[in-house]
């Protein structure tokens, strides 16, 4: 037992160190910076993250005291677990599989239960560290802007209520996605976004948002719905339009005293039950995990039969199809001469083609959505365009990191056609690919108005730079997937400025288009700077 715990401890230490040194931690810090600015806004500003309205009165928000800042910290922590946490920890089993570390671990006495438990523990510890940073920032905000006494329990209890079950649950779900064929690929990152938004957020909010608003949700693994109910319960019964989301107002916000949320035993018990819920994905992971041996996969066992013995004549030749002689079929000098015309054009075309070839199934879905978006009438076209932009995620998210993920950097970047800037090459190739597969949408936009055409072209250029450079910088596709999906979600929910391609009814204004172009240029510039540094330092 102690040996297993030691092994798990070693795994935990290595994983947490790896993650703390990864670009994901910078993303988490950026989230904390932006999130704390939004969810714990300067009390002198026009933004609030907890508001309600009383009959005939202005929008109320609590005074900047311990109860409010503590609750806002807990809400930000819940938002972190809904939107970001999974993307920070997903992929560790996949990484072990791809780097070959998994095969080494599989040859040790470490059982698959212990291995996966180590992964869950490492994910939990890392998420706990990030959640603790959010708590620290909350306390810092109070010290900077707060009034009244500092009440530690007002910070700690709501934060614990949310974070402990959420970190366990998300940690276990990340491992489940990692070991499940179909979910551990790039598509899994997209699927998680919807599972998290609808199954783990919208559904619990609906379950806890009954007419009397007093009942706690029976199912709330993340804890946002529980917080919502507790906030509602802390307000006067006549309070309406209670929101724990962001509110920006031109008019003044009325800051009123607020006693803060009370945590009844039922809520604590509910959260404890949510923590136990993490056992389910963990057990499912153990059942599904193949321990890096394809022959153990369920589908493999069911579908594959043992190969029949090859006939004697076939046995005489190598399994790779060649005769087993030390002499080649012909000599190298007999190879016909060949002329090469290296140039950037060849590299851009080859890379764009590879993006197409790397998604054998999704490319057809992407093409179909693009054609539908170009051909269907009215709202159906918007729906198809939204689907097109969504299917893009798994197709392009890792294109900028393909070499880093496969370990083919030296092979590819020593080729004569590849431009000296890999970031520029990746962005240009992706733009080429996107412009090609978006041809029906571009045609429709051109027929509609120049503004729409400009919006779509600038949007696609932005997506190219965003996808390729974020993947290039982080050596993976998770950052792009998470941020792009949040942007996409805002766009399909009719936030006009978030309509990055202008195909969902908004975002045509020159200022918006310039903003996306500038953001794309900034991504490219940053990637080229980092690339230069990597080249100079050999990293």
């Amino acid at each position, binding site marked *: 037992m102690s040996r297993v715990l030691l092994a798990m401890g070693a795994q935990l230490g290595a994983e947490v160190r790896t993650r703390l040194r990864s670009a994901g931690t910078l993303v988490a810090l950026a989230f904390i910076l932006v999130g704390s600015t939004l969810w714990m806004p300067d009390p002198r500003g026009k933004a609030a993250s907890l508001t309600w309205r009383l009959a005939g009165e202005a929008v109320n928000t609590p005074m900047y005291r311990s109860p409010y800042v503590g609750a806002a910290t807990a809400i930000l922590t819940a938002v972190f677990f809904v939107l970001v946490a999974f993307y920070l920890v997903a992929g560790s089993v996949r990484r072990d599989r791809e780097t070959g570390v998994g095969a080494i671990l599989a040859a040790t006495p470490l059982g698959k239960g212990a291995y996966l438990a180590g992964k869950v523990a490492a994910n939990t510890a890392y998420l706990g560290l990030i959640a603790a940073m959010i708590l620290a920032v909350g306390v810092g905000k109070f010290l900077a802007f707060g009034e009244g006494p500092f009440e530690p329990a007002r910070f700690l209890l709501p934060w614990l209520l949310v974070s402990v079950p959420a970190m366990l649950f998300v940690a276990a779900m990340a491992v489940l996605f990692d070991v499940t064929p179909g979910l551990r690929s790039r598509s899994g990152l997209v699927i998680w976004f919807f599972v998290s938004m609808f199954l783990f957020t919208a559904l619990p909010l609906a379950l806890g948002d009954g007419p009397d608003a007093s009942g706690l949700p029976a199912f709330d693994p993340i804890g946002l719905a529980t917080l919502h109910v507790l906030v509602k319960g802390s307000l006067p019964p006549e309070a309406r339009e209670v929101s724990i989301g962001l509110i920006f107002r031109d008019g003044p916000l009325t800051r009123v005293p607020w006693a803060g949320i009370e945590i009844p035993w039922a809520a604590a018990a509910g959260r404890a039950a949510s923590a136990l819920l993490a056992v389910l994905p963990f057990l499912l992971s153990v059942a599904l995990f193949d321990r890096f041996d394809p022959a153990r996969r369920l589908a493999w066992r069911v579908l594959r039969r043992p190969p029949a013995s090859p006939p004697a004549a076939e046995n005489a030749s190598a399994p790779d199809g060649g005769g087993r002689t030390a002499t080649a079929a012909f000599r190298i000098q007999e*190879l*016909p001469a060949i002329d090469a015309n290296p140039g950037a054009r060849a590299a851009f*075309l080859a890379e764009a083609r590879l993006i197409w070839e790397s998604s054998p199934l999704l490319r057809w879905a992407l093409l179909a959505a693009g054609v539908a978006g170009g051909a269907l009438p009215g709202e159906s076209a918007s729906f198809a365009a939204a689907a097109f932009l969504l299917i893009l995620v798994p197709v392009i998210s890792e294109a900028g990191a393909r070499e880093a993920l496969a370990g083919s950097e030296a092979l590819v970047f020593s080729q004569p056609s590849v431009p000296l800037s890999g970031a520029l090459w990746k962005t240009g190739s992706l733009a080429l690919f996107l412009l090609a597969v978006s041809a029906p949408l571009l045609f429709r936009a051109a027929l509609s108005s120049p503004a729409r055409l400009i919006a779509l072209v600038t949007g696609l250029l932005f997506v190219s730079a965003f996808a390729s450079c974020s993947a290039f910088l982080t050596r993976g596709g998770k950052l792009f997937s998470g941020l792009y999906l949040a942007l996409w979600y805002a766009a399909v929910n009719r936030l006009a400025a978030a309509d990055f391609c202008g195909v969902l009814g908004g975002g045509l204004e020159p200022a918006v288009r310039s903003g996306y172009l500038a953001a794309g240029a900034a991504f490219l510039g940053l990637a080229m700077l980092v690339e230069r540094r990597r080249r100079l330092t050999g990293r």
Partner: protein
Amino acid sequence: MLEIRSLSMRYPGGTTALSELSLSVGEGVLGLLGPNGAGKSTLMSILATVTRPTAGTFLWEGVDGVEHPLAVRRVLGYLPQDFGVYDKLTAREFLLYLGRLKGLSGAALKSRVDHLLQLVNLHGAAGRRLGGFSGGMRQRVGIAQALLGDPKLLIVDEPTVGLDPEERVRFRNLLSEIAHGRVVILSTHIVSDVEAVAGTIAVLRAGRLVCRATPEELLSKAAGRVFAVVVPPDRLAEVQRRLAVSSLSRRSDGVHVRFVGDASALAGAEAGSASPVEPTLEDAYLLTNLPGAA
């Protein structure tokens, strides 16, 4: 054809991989030997224009390869020590992709890929995804891609790792053939590979060139400095501490030890019983690693 001038590479954190390394390389195979961490792979990576040195440069037919890497890439075939492939592509698709990045296209590229797949004995697996390839098969794909563009400068880093004996022999023969009219730089720990194909050997240690010679010159330097002796098993640890042992085997009459260097390092009777033996290139290489050998 290739002139390396005072190349230095210092990684962040202070590790010096190469220190003022200078070397001229002509047509044929240059075998690069050296212990782990000697700087071989860093040198290969710089010559392949993947890594930029912190100081110094190299010239390919008079053109500065650090300032003009594309000029080198046009004539380069490079097989890195560790390389990945795209598991979802077939061997043919992968080679076609890299061929396009070399500026090849059309039927000529397809024909070239098919020929190379035959050359490396993978024509029967050309349509299979690389994800299902064994280590040796992947290595052969790597060899094929290095030959795609008819390279004038071929840099191969540990190319025979993972190959079975037959494939190793096949590859060595291939290198010997391709070296005609070209520069081939072969880095390996397998001395017999170097012995079989290299016209010149360069030995690196701690980022510096410690020896450059033909195999014959190295062997002649080693003559009279390689010995065999039989020692009792309980003396083995002491012998290993004192001598550079190149091989040992336990037999009924004791432990048969082959060592390089000075037989006088052995104690009394053992020194008298040590007999000189014909050196191999491996012995000669070990001699270059002895203190003061350079």
